[in-house]
């Protein structure tokens, strides 16, 4: 009994560190000290073995035994549960930020605005020649040439359009930071 008590007392400083030794979490010096003690102490070796066995039981009891659903399935489920506003705003903000960073998107945006302006130009009533009575005949009256200037909202990028029905001419200027205010003639300045 005394001998047993002595063994327990001797092993006490090592028992509290057995788990950390098993987990390889002790500093190098202490790890070696434990190696040395365990090589000479069957009692502590037995406890270490019991810790190891229990760890396996806990993993089996609480580990994820069945197949985890594929992450693609999980992602679709998660994405569809995100609040619409959060998803939409994030996507829109991301898209706008991408456009602000890349010159090609700036030009693409400017081109889209040009198309909108041209469509407006051609569809607008005030661009159509109006026939007005003049004596016994009617005369086609052309409006003044139209000049429009649009700020795109993209830094350094703006659009200017000149249109004249009379001359059958439309000129579009695209201004970006790269061109330093110079004009970029469109492929055809007369027929758009």
């Amino acid at each position, binding site marked *: 009994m005394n001998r047993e008590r002595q063994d327990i007392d001797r092993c006490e400083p090592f028992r*509290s*560190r*057995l*788990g*950390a030794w098993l*987990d390889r*979490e002790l500093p190098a010096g202490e790890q070696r000290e434990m190696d040395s003690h365990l090589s000479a102490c069957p009692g502590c070796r037995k*406890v270490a073995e*019991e*810790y190891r*066995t*229990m*760890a396996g*039981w*806990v*993993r*089996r*009891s*609480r*580990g*994820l*035994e*069945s197949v*985890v*659903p594929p*992450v693609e399935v*999980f*992602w679709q*489920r*998660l*994405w569809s*549960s*995100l609040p619409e506003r*959060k*998803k939409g*705003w*994030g*996507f829109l*903000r*991301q898209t706008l*930020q991408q456009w602000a960073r890349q010159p090609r998107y700036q030009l693409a945006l400017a081109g889209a605005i040009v198309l909108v302006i041209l469509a407006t130009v051609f569809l607008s009533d005030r661009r159509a020649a109006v026939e007005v009575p003049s004596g016994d005949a009617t005369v086609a009256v052309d409006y003044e040439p139209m000049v429009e200037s649009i700020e795109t909202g993209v830094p350094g990028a703006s659009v200017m359009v000149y249109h004249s029905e009379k001359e059958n001419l439309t000129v579009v200027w695209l201004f970006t930071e790269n061109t330093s205010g110079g004009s970029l003639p469109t492929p055809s300045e007369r027929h758009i």
Partner: protein
Amino acid sequence: MKAKKEKDRSRDEDFPLVERCRQGDSEAFELLVRKYYERMMRTAYSVVRRQEDALDVVQNGFLKAYQSIAKFSGKSSFSTWLYRIVINQAIDWKRKAARQDAASLHSDLDGKVPQVDQGALPQALENPRQAAFDSEREARVEQCLEHLSPEHQQAILLREVQGLSYQEIAEIMGCRVGTVMSRLYYAREALRARLKEWL
């Protein structure tokens, strides 16, 4: 102080993705989900013990992370922060389930047959005595784990099931490494005392 914060953030390998998430980059969020999905599933499962519940817990955890990413200070790593969210979600889920159905939870603890490992079924047919023995032992292990305090249970699961380091466990549990060490020691000794006849 600011320099230390910057240094801590740059050591976190997820920092670039987290920053993109803050700006609403859903692609960055998807990458983080793919990276941590399985780990979070194992963490949640180790607490709630049902796959379908674990899926819900992990989904709620990622949702909460997505909605709170702007508030993430960067004091800990992103993975630690995510672990804490998912563990808290799992604990809340379990408490709610216990409140809703306390009676069935007790019967689960008393005579629970652990979820069947599909691969084990043929072995059970071949060696029913061994299968019954294993089943009884697993039920006993489950009871012993439930008897541990939440801190001791959490420490032992993060170590034995997740394989996390003491430093990682300390960050998740918000304590020192020395505290993790003593919690694990206590948990292991408590389990050893209760499972003596099986060892």
